[in-house]
């Protein structure tokens, strides 16, 4: 056999060096997976959206891209997020998603923030055939619309209120006073609570609605204080959750159970009320770093990436779980959206907040939960099977 000529040798070396040098580029040259969403970066929804939702999308895309991209049936493709500000305006949300799905034809979409915006885009998801895994939508009516492409990750008003009333009953509460924001979220939760209270032996002594953006709740809280109920429940948004808490402290209204809704599970709540001031406050929360090793890893990664900003102990976990489901689904069935929908609808998913399974649009595997601030951490305290700490059934005085 003839010796390889100098030229052949050179060719071989050049090819090897070339391949080594260009192989990563060839890998990266896989077309990106384009994922679109609209998010509230300005306007009244921003407070919730920038805590519970968008940070997760950014963290997820960064983590996946660090692994070489999103696993699409075994092929890693970089994630390209296509996003815009919806200015907390439903009309803009709808137009953005129509563009993303109708003319831009992105590969996948991620949902917008809040019950109202999701309510508006849910029918579009169906029309264009894009699966939506919504982490911040709470509405019985969304479930009743039976939209095959729309999935709600968060526990809905009924299981949440049932869990709350179960807990109150088990701890001997007899009277309750309620305030609720007069929009879809507040009204549906209030209705679910009324149903849950039937036959529970707990009497409603006062109920008042208030408009979003309220600046003073003290007249209402003072009259509630006069009626001395065992329980205060507020179906509130973050600014009102903090307002109600601060003003309850101000007027000296300190019932045994003080429950508020969106925002109670935020780091902001602890910052504003101080850990001692938040002690014993109940609220909507379903996980924390103790829930699972995955939850701990997620919590730490989130806090690291956003300079100490913690995810909230309710919807952030559901949002991350939704991204986990999406990742697993795309790895298994690729970007065929019909197949992806079927995968989401029929699989029992393992996530950081526990198993998730959908019955129609609703996540029926995650039970309704109640959270409570204890020593600077928002613990899950009800039901006991998912609890991370024991309930303190008597809130200490406000500090």
């Amino acid at each position, binding site marked *: 056999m003839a010796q390889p000529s100098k030229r052949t040798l050179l060719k071989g070396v050049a090819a090897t060096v070339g391949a080594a040098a260009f192989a990563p580029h060839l890998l990266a040259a896989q077309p990106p997976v384009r994922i679109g969403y609209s998010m509230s970066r300005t306007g*009244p929804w921003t407070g919730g959206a920038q805590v519970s939702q968008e940070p997760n999308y950014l963290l997820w895309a960064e983590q996946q891209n660090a692994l070489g991209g999103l696993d699409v049936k075994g092929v890693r493709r970089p994630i390209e997020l296509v996003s815009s500000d919806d200015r907390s305006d439903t009309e803009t949300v709808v137009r953005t998603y129509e563009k993303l799905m109708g003319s831009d034809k992105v590969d996948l979409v991620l949902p917008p923030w809040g019950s109202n915006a999701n309510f508006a885009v849910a029918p579009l998801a169906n029309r264009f055939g894009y699966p939506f895994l919504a982490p911040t939508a709470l509405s019985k009516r969304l479930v009743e619309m039976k939209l095959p492409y729309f999935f709600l990750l968060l526990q809905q008003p009924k299981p949440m209120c049932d869990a709350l009333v179960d807990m109150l009953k088990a701890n001997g509460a007899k009277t309750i006073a309620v305030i609720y924001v007069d929009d879809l979220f507040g009204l549906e939760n209030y209705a679910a609570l009324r149903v849950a209270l039937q036959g529970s032996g707990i009497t409603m002594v006062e109920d008042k609605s208030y408009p979003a953006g309220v600046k003073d709740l003290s*007249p209402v809280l*003072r009259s509630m204080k006069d009626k001395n109920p065992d329980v205060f429940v507020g179906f509130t948004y973050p*600014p009102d959750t*903090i307002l109600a808490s601060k003003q309850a402290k101000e007027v000296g209204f300190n019932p045994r159970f003080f429950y508020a809704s969106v925002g109670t599970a935020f780091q902001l709540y602890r*910052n504003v009320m101080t850990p001692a001031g938040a002690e014993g406050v109940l609220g909507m929360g379903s996980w924390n770093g103790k829930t699972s090793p995955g939850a701990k890893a997620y919590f730490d990664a989130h806090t690291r990436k956003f300079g100490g900003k913690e995810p909230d102990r309710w919807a952030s976990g559901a949002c991350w779980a939704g991204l986990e489901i999406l990742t697993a689904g795309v790895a298994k069935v690729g970007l065929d959206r019909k197949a992806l929908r079927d995968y989401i609808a029929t699989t029992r998913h393992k996530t950081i907040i526990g198993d998730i399974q959908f019955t129609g649009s609703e996540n029926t595997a995650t039970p309704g939960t109640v959270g409570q601030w204890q020593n600077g951490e928002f613990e899950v305290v009800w039901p006991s099977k998912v609890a991370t700490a024991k309930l303190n059934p008597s809130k200490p005085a406000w500090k």
Partner: protein
Amino acid sequence: MSISAWLELIASGLITGGIYALVALGLNLQYGLMRILNIAHGEFLMVGAYLTWLFQTSYGLSPLLMVPVSFVVLLVLGVAVHFLCFRRLTATSPNLDVFEARGLMVAFGLMFLVQNFASWMWGGELRGYDYMTEPVKLGEAQFAANKLLVFFLALVFSGALIVLLRMTLLGKGVRALMQSPIGAQLMGIDTRRLHPLMFGIGLGLSGIAGALLSMAYTITPFMGQPYTVTALIVITLGGFGSMGGALIGGLFLGVIEALGMHFSNPSLKALLSYAIFIAVLLLRPEGLFTRKGRKA
């Protein structure tokens, strides 16, 4: 309802009203004196609130210390804004009505500019801190210490402004300008110096209001607008250009809202405020607390 419950309710209304009054005074100064309907007034209040929050959380500076700092920063900003926008408008507008309409447009622009600047700078999230939230007992009733402080300071600053306008030569000049701009100019009052200064003081007051509000409420870049609307209602109640009227109007609105919320529902608060607003505009457009033909 017992007498103490009544007093408590009225006192809580007065506290909220004190804040309304302070916000309204700044706007009233700008509108009453210069016919600049500064729709962005609430946005500058928000800047004052953010400055206070920023220095409190980053450097541990007392929010109380930030009250004068916010005033000075916003005053300087106000003079600059006047120099950049309204001075030119004054020179190019053929008459006061055209100036008012153009000024309104400019103020709208400023509103978006300032709001988006804050959003870009600090993000859209809710912010807040804990400061003097311990309840203080006053007889049977109790109130948060920070609210009492806010109320007290709101009264002090409102009073100071009224004294400034009534007792000093500067105030006399300003009131003369409100009554008759041309007459005042003919008497040698320097509008070119007085206008920017008063616009600046108006913004400075909004800075104070923002600093005070951040002690009691959570803040966002979008917090300003409702305060502008409330301020408009208050100055309509009190009479355009009337400082005493704005003070009484603010307190009055606060009490009415507190009583309304107690006896009906907080959801009806906006309805109540606007009903009063419309009724005053229809029945007594010069304001509830001014004698006809007399201002400030």
